[in-house]
């Protein structure tokens, strides 16, 4: 039942919000809705395993063999939790921001939340596709109405990109559906569909392109920096903190167990793309002056690492990914909050125009530094836990053994691919340290200039929001066990289905 509420509360909240006349009422109302969602989700997390509290199933379109079925298994739980926690944070941290037609803004924000929840919970392919698209439409309006100067073409590019991807996925879904034994869209039937190796090979790309565009993975990433830059900050937080996770989550739930042979055929190719993405995005991030773009490219690099670890296809790596999805969500939202605060106060995001803020705003500086260090995954921060597990997974992965044909053209025979990938990804981490620290140095330290001389420290509510996030960062950094427990069972189950050896035995 809680699973339905997770979708229903934001959905109804969003619709009601459209009819509220005053902006401030809508703002308070949307916060209320988000907090209620969070409280219920936290209650759901405490529920013992095996209860039906977090799952739901009802008839929807019996003629098509699709049901309205939702279930929060381990991985979905982590992500619904992230969505539920992130929304109040986002709303509180952008509290000061005033929007034209605020009721619509908050309405669209809540509708996006409903879509996201649906994507994370759906265990029916058609339902999943529904929510996948539904999460996109409100974001399209959010960015196009309240975004920056170049918002219309940029958002449109983003929309067309993702739409092409998802349509290809739709063809894939229909194809797999036609191969299921009981003609059903249910996740279980999909897992048991009879697909030959050749079919899996091309189906892999039908699904993966959609997910790769959402993540985004090199070379499907070109919409991302522009969109992050042009969107209103609250939307950017949703996009980068939550929406990006749709892609990774979809790979875990809808790709690895569904097309094990296809994954095996293409794992190395995708890993190469991921590694290229990590290095490439990190190098570009070095050159950025706009803080939003810097974070955007840094996000591409982080996502690349997660995708690399995903296709390492072992337990440690995947657990790292699940943990890191949560952590990355928290960290990047914190980074956007800091950027938003700086932009609100000084009216610019350009690092070259800022400097010496630490003298004027010590609290902001302290919190910013901690968040930034979590972003580089320093030990004792949450980022470290995830990245350590992922690197461990990549290094020990057996997915790369043997001969490979990259993208069907280049033959490759390398025994030590895991080590090479680890080293290359490691370079990405070093670069990430370089650009993050450089940003801190430029923004926080040095001499104050005309612009920053009149700076003041952040307000109490802003302090609280950041303090809560920093607390989460450190707690997970020191004691990640509860989170690991949640994801462990589900990861094992996914890997069992994704394991080809296991498949052959059956």
């Amino acid at each position, binding site marked *: 039942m809680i699973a339905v509420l997770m979708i229903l509360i934001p959905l109804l909240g969003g619709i009601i919000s459209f009819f509220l006349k005053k902006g401030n009422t809508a703002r308070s109302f949307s916060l209320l809705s988000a907090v209620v969602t969070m409280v219920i989700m936290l209650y759901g997390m405490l529920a013992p395993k095996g209860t039906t509290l977090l799952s739901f199933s009802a008839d929807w*379109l*019996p*003629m*098509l063999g699709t049901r309205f079925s939702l279930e929060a298994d381990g991985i979905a739980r982590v992500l619904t939790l992230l969505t539920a926690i992130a929304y109040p944070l986002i709303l509180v941290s952008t509290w000061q921001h005033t929007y034209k037609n605020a009721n619509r803004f908050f309405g669209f924000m809540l509708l996006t939340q409903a879509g996201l929840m649906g994507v994370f919970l759906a265990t029916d392919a*058609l339902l999943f*596709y*529904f929510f996948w*698209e*539904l999460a996109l*439409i409100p974001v399209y*309006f959010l960015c*196009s*109405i309240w975004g920056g100067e170049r*918002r*219309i073409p940029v958002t*449109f590019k983003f*929309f*067309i990109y993702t*739409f*092409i991807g998802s*349509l*290809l996925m*739709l*063809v894939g879904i*229909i*194809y797999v*559906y*036609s191969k299921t034994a009981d003609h059903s869209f249910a996740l279980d039937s999909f897992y048991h569909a009879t697909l030959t190796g050749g079919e899996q090979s091309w189906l892999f790309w039908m699904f993966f392109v959609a997910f790769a565009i959402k993540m985004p993975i090199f070379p499907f990433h070109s919409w991302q920096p522009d969109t992050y830059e042009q969107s209103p900050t609250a939307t950017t937080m949703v996009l980068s903190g939550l929406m990006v996770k749709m892609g990774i989550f979809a790979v875990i739930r809808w790709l690895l167990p569904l097309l094990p042979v296809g994954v095996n055929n293409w794992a190395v190719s995708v890993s190469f793309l991921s590694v290229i993405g990590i290095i490439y995005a990190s190098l570009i991030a070095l050159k950025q002056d706009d803080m939003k773009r810097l974070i955007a490219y840094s996000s591409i690099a982080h996502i690349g690492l997660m995708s690399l670890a995903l296709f390492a296809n072992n337990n440690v790596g995947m657990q790292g990914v699940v943990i890191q999805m949560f952590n990355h969500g928290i960290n990047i939202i914190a980074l956007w909050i800091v950027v938003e605060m700086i932009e609100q106060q000084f009216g610019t995001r350009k690092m070259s125009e800022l400097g010496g803020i630490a003298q004027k705003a010590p609290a902001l500086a302290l919190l910013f530094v901690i968040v930034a260090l979590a972003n580089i995954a320093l030990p004792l921060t949450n980022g470290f836990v995830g990245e350590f597990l992922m690197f461990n997974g990549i290094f020990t992965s057996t997915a790369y053994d043997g001969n490979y044909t990259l993208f069907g053209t280049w033959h490759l025979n390398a025994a030590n691919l895991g080590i090479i990938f680890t080293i290359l990804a490691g370079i990405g981490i070093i670069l990430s340290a370089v650009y993050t620290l450089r940003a801190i140095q430029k923004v926080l330290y040095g001499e104050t200039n005309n612009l920053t001389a009149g700076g003041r420290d952040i307000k109490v509510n802003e302090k609280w929001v950041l303090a809560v996030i920093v607390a989460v960062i450190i707690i997970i950094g020191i004691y990640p066990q509860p989170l690991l427990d949640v994801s462990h069972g589900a990861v094992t189950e996914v890997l069992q289905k994704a394991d080809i050896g296991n498949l052959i035995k059956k």
Partner: protein
Amino acid sequence: MNALLISAVMGVLMMFSSFMLKSKSAVRNVALAGMFLILVANILDTYGWHLFNIPTEGMMHFDRFSLFFNSIAFACTFIFFLLSARDMEKVGINYAEYFSLIFFILCGIVLVASFQSLLILFLGIEIISIPLYILTGSDKRNLKSNEASLKYFLLGSFSTGIMLMGITLLYGHAGSFDITVLIKAGEKPSSLAIAGLLMLLFAMAFKVSAAPFHFWTPDVYDGAPTVFTSFMATIVKAAAFIGFMRLFSTAFYSLHDQWQMVIAIITALTLLIGNITAVFQQSIKRMLAYSSISQAGFMMLALFALNGTATEGLFLYVAAYSLATIGVFAVLIKMKDYTFEGFNGFARHHPFLAAVNTVFLLSLAGIPLTAGFLAKFYMLKAAVEAGGFLWLVIFAVLMAAVSVYYYFRVIQAMYFKEGDAPVSMEVSRPFQWVLGVLAFLIILLGVFPNALLYWFYF
């Protein structure tokens, strides 16, 4: 049979009311009442209440397929009347005659949906086409309207000629016009049968404006008065598709393998030309003309697949497409400027109209939660189930992605651009209500397509 006779009588009645009724609102009310009567009579017919019992000598067969489609077409026409009947006044002075012609077209639609003999198909197509030629040219002072009418008439007659030739050849092959006889004769195809089949295929492709027989469509749809374009692009096109489907799923079913490839190529071409050309249009009316071509491409997938899903899907598609397009046109008629710029800032001045228009456009683009999505979904599903032609399915979805470009341009103009969106006439409250109901229907069908498809079986 009920609907056929009543709509013929209604046509005559409307002719008479042109000189018997003085006020235009009286004419309109008679037409609305008649339309409602036809719809009800058809539903009664569906459930066994035949008001007339006239032997058709096996030339027509009123099965569930035809009656169900008739209901959809009549319901759409009824909504079309509710929305746009008032706007017909501005086309010319012959107000009652326009209704009369539309009722005659409905007769033709019934014939096309329920023919059993190729002769009736021919009659139906002609009864649809001839009033349409007149309606296209009804804006007599407008040169573009005259040109459109003449062009439509010449090309339409040409395609009818091809169709007749095809029917003749088929008669030479099977010795009968009856489609049930043609199925059996199809098991031993001769060159005559194949030639006849191809001619019928081309003639029908012309009527549904599938490429490469689509050249008349943009000019005619653009030149005709906008109210009639709305009717022509939706209900008439839907009827042509139903006739197409009926012909090919019965008469030529045994030859399916032979013509499947031809249909596949026509489908791909239609999708390509319709979508790519629509991208470059500046006038929304012309864009909608091309969009109707591209939507026809999607409906062709049903003919290509020809299975149970395809039949259901075609009904859903026809309903979704007609409802959404009627809605978009109803809003467009109210505008002073038909270009994309004409919609700039529309959302600020008419938030409700902009919102419902967005629903219609999203449905046409095939975004989930609208009927358009499930309609496209059914088509793709049918094509995948037919097997073997996966390239066509992938091509179709890529083209669907292209279509987003031009539909969303309207949304962009309405919501994200500054302007004053000049409206040429008053927007009444009942009009808004009907549009609201229409948008609700589209969303309802987008969540529960069974709300429509259930009635196909029960």
